[in-house]
């Protein structure tokens, strides 16, 4: 079997004396969408930040298609083929939409094919193309989220990490975001999706890990989406 696109093995992250992530194992195969849900403080965002090299890894390893990226700087991890859509979008509000996209291009491994990739992203997110010249801060929340995803995609990552992309968005806008994620999956990008919307994520992803207290408590399949009791039980396990 081929090496997983993303392989997190025995990951441990500590903030001082507190262990935020304890012995975490996650595997995401190429082209899969894997969900990661769990209560606040479970260690989901910390896991993503550890993968990106933004917080130090105490134990364990993180491999991209078999190659370890542990201990690398965030900027080199981005160049190894991982992009993060951070929590709260973190777009550059005072920059134009186009400048935000140009910043996304910084993390590319190859300068070839930029035009094609931009075309692809603009097709996925027409709004990003339409408002190219506007300050990004003037976009609505949903549009900003689309921009944040577009900005991550133009780096042409093998693995896309999303940290609560539906956070703070109106229900209809959440639909748009999930629709976009479906389209991204069709393009063969490997996705690790951290979400608060448990049922929706379980139904959407190929597999969903439930995380609590820094550990994986349960793995759910799309068929489990209707089983609210099981999801709730996993949260409080």
């Amino acid at each position, binding site marked *: 079997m081929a090496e997983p696109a993303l392989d997190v093995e025995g990951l441990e992250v500590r903030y001082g004396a507190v262990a935020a992530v304890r012995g975490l194992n996650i595997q995401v195969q190429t082209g899969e969408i894997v969900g990661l849900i769990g209560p606040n403080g479970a260690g989901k965002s910390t896991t993503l930040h550890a993968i*990106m090299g*933004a917080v130090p890894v105490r134990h364990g390893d993180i491999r991209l298609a078999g190659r370890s990226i542990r201990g690398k*700087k*965030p*900027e080199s991890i*981005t*160049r190894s083929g991982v992009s*993060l859509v*951070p929590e709260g979008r*973190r777009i*550059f*509000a*005072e*920059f134009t939409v186009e*400048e935000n996209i*140009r*910043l*996304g291009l*910084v*993390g*590319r491994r190859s300068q070839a094919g930029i035009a094609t990739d931009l075309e692809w992203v603009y097709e996925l997110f027409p709004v990003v193309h339409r408002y190219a010249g506007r300050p990004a*801060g003037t*976009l*609505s*929340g949903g549009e*900003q989220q689309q921009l944040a995803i577009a*900005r991550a995609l133009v*780096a042409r990552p093998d693995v896309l990490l999303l940290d609560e992309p539906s956070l*703070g*968005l*109106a229900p209809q*806008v959440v639909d748009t975001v999930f629709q976009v994620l479906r389209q991204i999956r069709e393009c063969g990008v490997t996705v690790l999706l951290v979400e608060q919307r448990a049922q929706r994520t379980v139904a959407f992803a190929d597999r969903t890990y439930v995380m609590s207290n820094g550990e994986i408590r349960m793995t759910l399949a799309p068929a489990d989406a209707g089983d609210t009791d099981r999801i709730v039980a996993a949260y409080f396990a």
Partner: protein
Amino acid sequence: MTQIQTVIDAVGLGALYALMAVGIALVFGVMRLVNFAYGQLIMFGAYALAFTNSLPEGVSILVCLAVVVALSLAMGVAFIPLRRASPATMLVATFAISFLLQSIALLSYSYRNKPIGDPALVLSGLNKAFTIGSVHVRWITLVLIGTAAVCLAALALLLERTDIGLQIRAAAADFQTARLLGVQAGRVIAFAFLVSGVLAAIVAVLFVVQTPFVTPDYGLKETIIVLVAVVVGGIDRLTTATLGGFAIGFATGLFGGFLPGQGPEQGSFPFTTRVYLDSVIFLLVILVLLLRPGGLFARRGGPVERV
């Protein structure tokens, strides 16, 4: 007519301070570091000019540029490990570097026994004045205003139109997110110190023309005033910081021209203009900081959360 002359000189001083301010604010933007040692860059540049009087002026200026840029990059390297330290630690570290460089200059200064400093003669011809009507304008004032305008325009173009400029702006706005997007921290910091160094070298040349005797505390007082100016303008934006520099320089020039001159021959106050001047300027600074603590030119209202 003397009013016009005073205004022109004030614009010149404003231009000089604006150049210093933008160099300080650029480094602050990417490092969140108030570089107190900026004045010593100017001092070392001025010494580089003074020690190369015998060389052709162009070569002398190039030596100054090389020395200041090298020193600025070295400062950058020295500060990188402190990037995650508290602002107080970083400020104290810049004090330490500032005093170290001053002490080095002082050691060599006392050894050479030059009581009024080492004269730097580069471009001294620019001190000549030309006259329009009854207004006397020194060439250096025009050169100052022109150079500042060109430098600021070039910097604006660099930041707005180039990829490295965009990356510097991104790093200044949100360093963590910029790195997550692939912006290389070391490269951006080095570039900021490089540009800041080039600006310091330009300031050193312009400053030396007006104040040719170089001493170990050269540029120190001006740096302190500009550091204050940058805070008054609003340190977290290049534009506001630069405007702050210009405003303080302009105000200093203006009040310097209009306040009463030497006191003793007119009466009982043994004060010089300079004493009034600093009092007035810093009184204004206090007023501004009381009324607009975010900076004189800061925008009102914070960012808006969009849903």
